[in-house]
């Protein structure tokens, strides 16, 4: 499997009456794109907005973020099983627009009233402390502001938002066809050097098997209770793994994160230099019994060993009891002689003195912290709101008190900021207290 990723940087996005990509400037034919979104009868209203780093703007109602990509050769299309049929991806050539994203923001009430299945949306400030708290503060965004028709099922709402988001992103990426890229990167793991250690990435995924969408999908199919499987990094680069689009929470990775998985990208870069990167084990976590957690830990470690791993980087997504599965996985790897390193965010409370993690095993003797998700954050008053919500519901139950989205916001956790929790070590944080 060999994928050439051609990069087209975007410095500026302009809403215009023509669509084109030219020397770092992306022009978007606004009415044409708005009409394209409204072709889906489940979307009642749609408009486009553009924001750039430094703008005094707060984006509300964020459900997901995607980097525009399109496949120009090789089988399949980006987001297989969602934008097209279930076909193998990861081979050939894919174009990507870097430095910008498509943000899906949508007003949607939802039908689930408790638990992780409740619809949620996050916000993003493009200036000040809010921009510093998220990697997305430094990128330009084309924001889709949508309102769904009432009465949709949870899954229909998800499909409507995700469909609009991915279709717009792919259409934009198509503007680069025939244009010379600024950079080409080759992703090819086929050649290994015997002198280097074999390293695997174990990606734990909390999924909710009882919800309409479990949270994470593989070729468009929501992953429910399942055993671990192997995924090639190139498949991620082409969107084989995607996420639910009705739940924007800072500590759940979004589509952009899967396309730009920082641990995966670094391991690809180091392949053949420092390590032989074997690929990714996608491991469903959050089993409801301790027995289940032990089995999935064993299963991932067994797969890692079978693939020849000598080292494993173990990371996860989610919160709560799923972390027990993660720790047991570290133990299971170490017991088989696979050196395992954990990459995780911490809790720690407002002041960082509470327990940073839910559960420990003695075998977890190498842990990389990506920072706390519990630190409070004060966002100053914004000049302008982009997005479907002028008012914010800090708690998500119907009838919960609302705050003016424009005003100063004091957040007691990073969940409400998209990209506010550094799940996989993307940011270059420096530890200044230990």
């Amino acid at each position: 499997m060999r994928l050439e990723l051609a990069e087209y940087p975007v410095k500026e996005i302009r809403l215009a009456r023509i669509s084109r990509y030219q020397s770092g400037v992306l022009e978007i034919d606004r009415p044409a794109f708005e009409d394209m979104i409204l072709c889906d009868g489940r979307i009642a209203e749609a408009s486009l907005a553009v924001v750039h780093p430094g703008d005094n703007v707060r984006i509300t109602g964020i459900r997901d973020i995607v980097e525009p990509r399109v496949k120009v050769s090789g089988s399949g299309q980006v987001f297989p099983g969602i934008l097209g049929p279930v076909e193998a991806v990861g081979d050939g050539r894919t174009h990507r627009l870097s430095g910008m994203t498509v943000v899906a923001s949508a007003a949607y009430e939802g039908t689930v009233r408790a638990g992780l299945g409740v619809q949620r949306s996050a916000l993003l400030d493009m200036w000040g402390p809010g921009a510093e708290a998220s990697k997305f503060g430094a990128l330009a965004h084309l924001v889709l502001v949508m309102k769904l028709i009432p009465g949709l099922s949870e899954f229909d709402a998800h499909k409507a938002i995700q469909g609009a988001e991915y279709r717009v992103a792919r259409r934009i990426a198509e503007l680069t066809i025939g244009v010379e890229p600024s950079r080409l990167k080759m992703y090819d793991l086929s050649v290994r050097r015997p002198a280097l250690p074999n390293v695997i990435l174990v990606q734990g995924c909390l999924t909710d098997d009882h919800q309409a969408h479990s949270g994470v999908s593989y070729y468009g199919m929501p992953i429910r209770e399942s055993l671990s499987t192997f995924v090639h990094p190139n498949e991620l680069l082409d969107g084989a793994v995607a996420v639910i689009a009705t739940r924007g929470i800072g500590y759940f990775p979004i589509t952009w994160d899967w396309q730009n998985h920082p641990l995966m990208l670094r391991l690809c870069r180091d392949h053949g230099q420092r390590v032989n990167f074997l690929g990714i084990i996608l491991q469903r976590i959050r089993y409801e019994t301790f027995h289940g957690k032990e089995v999935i830990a064993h299963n991932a470690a067994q797969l890692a060993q079978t693939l020849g791993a000598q080292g494993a980087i173990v990371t996860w997504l989610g919160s709560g009891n799923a972390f027990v599965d993660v720790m047991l996985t570290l133990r299971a790897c170490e017991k088989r002689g696979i050196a395992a390193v954990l990459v995780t965010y911490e809790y720690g409370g407002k002041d960082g003195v509470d327990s940073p993690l839910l559960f420990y095993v003695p075998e977890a003797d190498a842990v990389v912290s990506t920072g706390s998700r519990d630190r409070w954050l004060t966002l100053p008053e914004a000049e302008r709101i982009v997005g479907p919500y002028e008012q914010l519901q800090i708690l998500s139950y119907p009838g919960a008190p609302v705050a003016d989205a424009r005003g100063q916001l004091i957040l007691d956790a990073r969940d409400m900021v998209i990209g506010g929790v550094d799940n996989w070590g993307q940011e270059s944080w420096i530890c200044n207290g230990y």
Partner: protein
Amino acid sequence: MSKELEKAGLPVAIVSAMYPVVEQVRANRIVKGVSIPHPCGDPSLPQDLDARLRREIVRTALRALESDVQGPTLFSPDVAVNR
């Protein structure tokens, strides 16, 4: 909570499906529960079997309360759980 209650002089048995986590925070009497959403029973069972399971878990918890323990001790209900 169980530690605070014990500090106040009340013996506590905690029923939990995540018993190793409970052990880690050093609660004293730990009863193996069924699953995280349903520690004290199994709604997928026929009603009479679920009732028997629930009774056994409560009995085990009462046995735990009566027991003298030194540090975290695990009590296992005598049931076969299909999960």
